[in-house]
């Protein structure tokens, strides 16, 4: 952790008046843990007595509607990808995604598996990665402080990217999952992109 990143400015009243939205997002990260792989075993010590994530405002919530931080803790099989996408689309914006462990980054030890996703960021936008197999709970805190910096600088814009390139993400999702049974989240954006493609083509 460098000196600049991850400096706690929760009690800076001036900043609260200047950008209440950003400050609120920073210090109230309600996390949705997607318990896909072995990474989930690192989460209980993170949120309970030993490391206590609640002192930074990070608490687990039960449903995607209440969450704004999405932690993918481990490998993503084709079967779970469907539910990851659905959960991600249900979260209210602004929302941040963090890939936990090496499996969502590049497949990790499942690099040659036939039913595991190798690159999560092809299917949903990911704002940051925690590398390691397994990352320790401290790494989660480092990730959170980096996420604060990104939010401060306006760089945690995965959800905007999803909006902007929705057609591309949807195409990638359909390539691996076949026909999706739910309607597109941003139907207009998709039409726009198709018309743009037609003009270009």
């Amino acid at each position, binding site marked *: 952790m460098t000196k600049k990143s991850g400096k706690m400015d*929760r009690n800076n009243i001036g900043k*609260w008046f200047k950008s*209440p*939205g950003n*400050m*609120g*997002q920073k*210090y*109230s990260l*309600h996390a949705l843990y997607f318990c896909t792989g072995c990474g989930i075993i690192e989460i209980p010590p993170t949120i*309970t*007595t030993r490391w*206590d994530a*609640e*002192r930074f*405002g990070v*608490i687990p*919530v*039960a*449903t995607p*509607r*209440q969450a*704004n931080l999405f932690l993918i803790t481990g490998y993503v099989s084709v079967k779970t990808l469907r539910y990851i996408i659905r959960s991600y689309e*249900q*979260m*209210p*914006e*602004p929302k941040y995604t963090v890939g936990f462990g090496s499996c969502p980054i590049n497949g990790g030890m499942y690099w040659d598996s036939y039913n595991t996703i190798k690159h999560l960021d092809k299917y949903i936008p990911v704002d940051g990665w925690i590398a390691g197999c397994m990352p320790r709970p401290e790494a989660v805190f480092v990730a959170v402080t980096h996420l604060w910096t990104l939010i401060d600088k306006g760089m945690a814009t995965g959800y905007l990217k999803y909006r902007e390139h929705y057609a591309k993400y949807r195409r990638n999702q359909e390539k691996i999952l076949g026909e999706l049974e739910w309607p597109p989240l941003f139907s207009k954006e998709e039409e726009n992109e198709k018309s743009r493609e037609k003009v270009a083509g």
Partner: protein
Amino acid sequence: MVLVLQILFVSILACLVGLFLIGLSRKVTARIHWRYGPPLSQPFIDIVKWFSQTAVSHGKLFDAGMIFSLTGSVVVVLFLPFGGICPLSGSGGLLVILYLMLIAPLGIALSAGESANPHASIGVSRKMQLAFGYELSLLMILLSLMTYYRTVSIVDIVETQIQAGWSLVQLPLVVSGLAYLLIMPAIMGIRPFEMIQAPQEISSGPMAEYGGKFLAFATLQHAFNIYIGLSLFVNLFMGGGSNAGYFLIKLLLAFMVFQVVHAVWPRFRIEQAVRYLWRWPALLAFIGLIIVWVTTS
């Protein structure tokens, strides 16, 4: 003009007190768990965040039910004496409070039902069953208070207590007071009666489909709910307060007692809760009612 100022003052202060108590609850629970815990301002931070998020609505009743519930809570707050101030003291007293207290859960039930989430329906049905459990004791306790003080006005009850001492330590009312202490966690919806929300089993129940500003409103409603539960107990059994400061100190004292229970107890299942509520608090309340009836007649 004075009435408008009083209404604004009491409702805003009740909301702030409720939010502060939520923050304090999280901090105290954390300290009992040997954690450091979130800052006291965490509920306020959460509310700011929720209002800055987008939110998905599931229909007109989803929005209207939330507003209905919040309004119901604010109206109940206005009927409860806050220290020396009670904006709507003229009419009805305890009987009106009893009826109005049903509006808030009904609004949440309507709103959560509109979302058609099965977890929300289970949460709502548990809420109704729990209310079915504690209402019996609550009615008998209030009846014994009304019989003892020969009035339905909560302001009069507070004034009599300021002169004669707390109801909780007066001999005919001790048993009723004990019964009230036992049903208090159920009224406030904290552990061991937290099965309405139960994040681990039914994904926070009625709150399952709330996000963004809806969750903010639900939390404000929860803050009012905590204030109402504690304030009713303080006014009826702990002598209210001759001024606002004294009243708030008593509120804090009552809150800490239930908070300690909340921090260390596990959760009942719903049928265990109803069985408990209909056995011990109901029995005590019934004995209390008989004692009061015998001593006053």
